[in-house]
């Protein structure tokens, strides 16, 4: 089975899932087992570096920047207070020290590894071939999926309560522990195991390494190929899971995949055995080579002496799989690839939602010698980008974030940043990029360079300056000329236009142009978006065209606005008003949207719109 098979197989899923994905417009969110407060978890000993300043200063901040650390530190936690970073020894580490202190009779610990930077798993097995997996995370619940029909009950134990799912041959229990700041689950294919009792025993004990594998009762380093064909290097190391690990090697064009298990024979079963088999030998022991219709070959063998099963697979015809297999031996432990572990660090930006923050012409004032202004973007969509370039092609890219919206911004996976101070403000420097905020102005600044430029000095020069001419300002002007300069004339008190962007028809064949205007209430940041744009459709009725304007909205009503066919829709907080000036095949649609104003209020604004 390949990714393509899985992708094609999705065509056979129940049509109700297709329907749900098409019709659901608001996500209900993950069901939580317990009301474990996110704040508590975020403060979990190993998971977070929080930027903290005094409560007094917090009250006036209009923008917040948090550095979330997912990468598990060895045994220390970094705490940033103001601009000073200190390191403190941690008494415990949830991922390495917190696990079941009592396991069912007949079971022993087999292996464990990271699942992501903030979660890990431990596998217990018995002689009958049953297993129990313990999963613990400092940030999220991972509910175990069981094959339906599934029975679900709430179980209580001393440490709290959890949800127990059972089906014919498996059971899974998940719970959260607010006091110790973790989420956990237990899964087993042994229906005789009392998972609640095992969950009850979860607590702190002797530290267990993040990655470990026990074999024949002793810690064991998994074996892997020690000699690779010329040009091949390791490209991916998967975490150890269920007594199994896989590695991938590549030469850029082809791959060699290697898998090793101490638990089960990795060769396919007879039912799926549709390849062409050849007998082979690895170090004198019998092995089997499978070929399929392509150039793919897979070699399966068992090392009885060391006690493991393994396979090697490639489509590279020049690779001698037997030779690679015969080189398999003990080597240095390899770190799990980052691609399996999710982002290591994330910088989160969020603004006070009710604070109106107006764009200002603020940018670096001391541009290094040799750099010329290359591009100035519209201060639209809550941000403005400016670029400078030198003759060598090196770039200085600067973005001012003045309005982050409800969901803020996240910058993830760029490694551990260096904490710096920019004119008294905390900043995070990662390689050639720097992110910092001004809490009083409510701005965030992102500065990136490709050449040899002193980022800190450049950042310290960011200050108000003369307004720079927007590079594509003629785009908006042309769009206004083509579509007309329409404005809301009856704006609510305190509301101002604070954003304008447009794009004209570029040539005779082009059919799409637009003008967008943003309006904000300066006292509470309430917002109204006004867009007018061209449309071309093959609809047969005006209602169909109007429905396209408020796509996905429930129970729209059809109205007349400015003598034109219009539509309104109130979907929870979201209010839409739209009308079209044209026919069913082409024209201009006008749309107003707000999450703070109602349809009735938007209708008043719509009726006040006039062309200048």
């Amino acid at each position: 089975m390949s990714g393509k098979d899985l992708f094609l197989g999705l065509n056979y899923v129940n049509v109700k899932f297709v329907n749900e994905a098409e019709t659901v417009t608001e996500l209900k969110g993950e069901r939580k087992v317990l009301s474990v407060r996110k704040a508590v978890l975020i403060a979990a000993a190993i998971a977070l570096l929080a930027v903290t300043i005094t409560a007094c200063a917090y009250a006036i901040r209009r923008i917040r920047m948090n550095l979330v650390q997912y990468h598990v530190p060895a045994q220390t936690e970094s705490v940033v207070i103001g601009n000073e970073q200190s390191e403190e020894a941690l008494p415990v580490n949830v991922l390495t020290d917190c696990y079941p202190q009592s396991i069912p009779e007949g079971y022993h610990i087999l292996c464990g590894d990271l699942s992501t930077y903030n979660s890990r798993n431990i596998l217990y097995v018995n002689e009958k071939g049953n297993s129990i997996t313990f999963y613990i995370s400092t940030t999220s619940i991972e509910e175990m999926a069981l094959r339906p029909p599934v029975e679900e009950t709430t179980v209580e134990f001393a440490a709290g309560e959890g949800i127990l799912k059972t089906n014919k041959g498996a059971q899974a229990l998940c719970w959260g522990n607010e006091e110790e700041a973790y989420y956990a689950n237990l899964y087993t294919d042994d229906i005789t195991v009392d998972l609640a009792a095992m969950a009850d025993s979860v607590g702190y004990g002797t530290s267990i390494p993040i990655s470990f594998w026990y074999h024949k009762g002793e810690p064991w380093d998994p074996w892997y190929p020690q000699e690779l064909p010329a040009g091949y290097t390791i490209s991916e190391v998967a975490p150890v899971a269920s007594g199994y690990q896989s590695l991938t090697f590549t030469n850029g064009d082809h791959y060699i995949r290697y898998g090793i298990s101490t638990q089960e024979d990795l060769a396919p079963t007879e039912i799926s055995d549709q390849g062409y088999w050849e007998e082979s030998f690895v170090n004198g022991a019998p092995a089997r080579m499978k070929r399929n219709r392509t150039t793919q070959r897979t070699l399966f063998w068992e090392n009885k002496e060391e006690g493991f099963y393994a396979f090697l697979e490639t489509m590279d015809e020049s690779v001698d799989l037997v030779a690679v297999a015969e080189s398999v031996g003990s080597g240095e432990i390899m770190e799990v690839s980052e691609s399996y572990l999710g982002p290591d660090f994330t910088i989160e930006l969020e603004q006070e939602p009710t604070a109106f923050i107006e764009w200002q012409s603020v940018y670096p004032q001391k541009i290094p010698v040799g750099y010329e202004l290359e591009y100035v973007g519209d201060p639209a969509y809550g941000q403005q980008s400016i670029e400078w370039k030198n003759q060598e092609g090196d770039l200085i890219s600067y973005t001012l974030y003045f309005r982050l919206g409800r969901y803020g911004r996240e910058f993830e996976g760029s490694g551990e940043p260096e904490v710096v101070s920019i004119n008294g403000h905390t900043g995070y420097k990662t390689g050639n990029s720097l992110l910092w905020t001004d809490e009083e102005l409510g701005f965030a600044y992102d500065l990136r360079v490709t050449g040899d430029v002193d980022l800190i000095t450049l950042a310290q020069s960011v200050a108000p300056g003369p307004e720079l001419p927007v590079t594509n300002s003629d785009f908006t002007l042309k769009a206004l000329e083509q579509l007309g300069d329409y404005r809301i004339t009856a704006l609510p008190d305190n509301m101002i236009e604070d954003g304008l962007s447009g794009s004209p028809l570029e040539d005779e064949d082009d059919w799409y142009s637009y003008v967008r205007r943003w309006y904000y209430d300066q006292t509470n940041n309430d917002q109204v978006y006004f867009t007018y744009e061209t449309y071309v459709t093959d609809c047969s009725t005006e209602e169909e065209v109007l429905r396209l304007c408020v796509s996905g909205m429930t129970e729209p009503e059809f109205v007349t606005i400015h003598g034109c066919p219009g539509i309104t829709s109130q979907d929870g907080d979201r209010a839409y008003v739209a009308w079209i000036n044209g026919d069913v095949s082409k024209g201009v649609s006008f749309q107003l949207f707000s999450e703070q104003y109602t349809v009735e209020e938007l209708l008043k604004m719509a009726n006040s719109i006039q062309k200048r």
Partner: protein
Amino acid sequence: MEDVKIIDLYFARNEDAICQTDAAYGRKLFCLAERILHNEQDSEESVSDTYMKTWETIPPHRPTYFYAYLAKLCRFFALGKLDWKNAAKRKAEVVSLTDEMEQCIPDQRKEAEAEGKEIGRAMNAFLESISQESHVIFMRRYWFCDTIAEIAERYGISESKVKMRLLRTRKQLAEFLSKEGIAV
């Protein structure tokens, strides 16, 4: 026209059923096929094939979710027309999607041959057992081939949340396929 009325037209063997289907869903179906094929002509053919198959199958079928029924047919025809060898050259999203899906397959299962219907059954069981948020985002990405940005926009969540949710769901699926999934 309401779905129920369009389906009634199919039952009445009224050819206007196809026109009404096209008016209601033609654009969406074309977009779905175009996402997979990156080719206008093939996409149009996929939509036409969809209408033909719908005409042949209704009656006897009376689909509860009409658009989902059409989309399923359209996806099937589009994937049938996809030139997998040249998909990468056309920068078709399906290439990266199949790469992402590859991560869901436990290595023990990679050698196993599995029929589409068997995979579908396993996927049903999996989707049934995860949260709505997870399966809706998963379907938008791997069934409708939406981009991360489109999913974030659709549900008003950040792109990194979408990516994280997909990463977790893929891990869950890998575990599911490893422990509970396809019988080989």
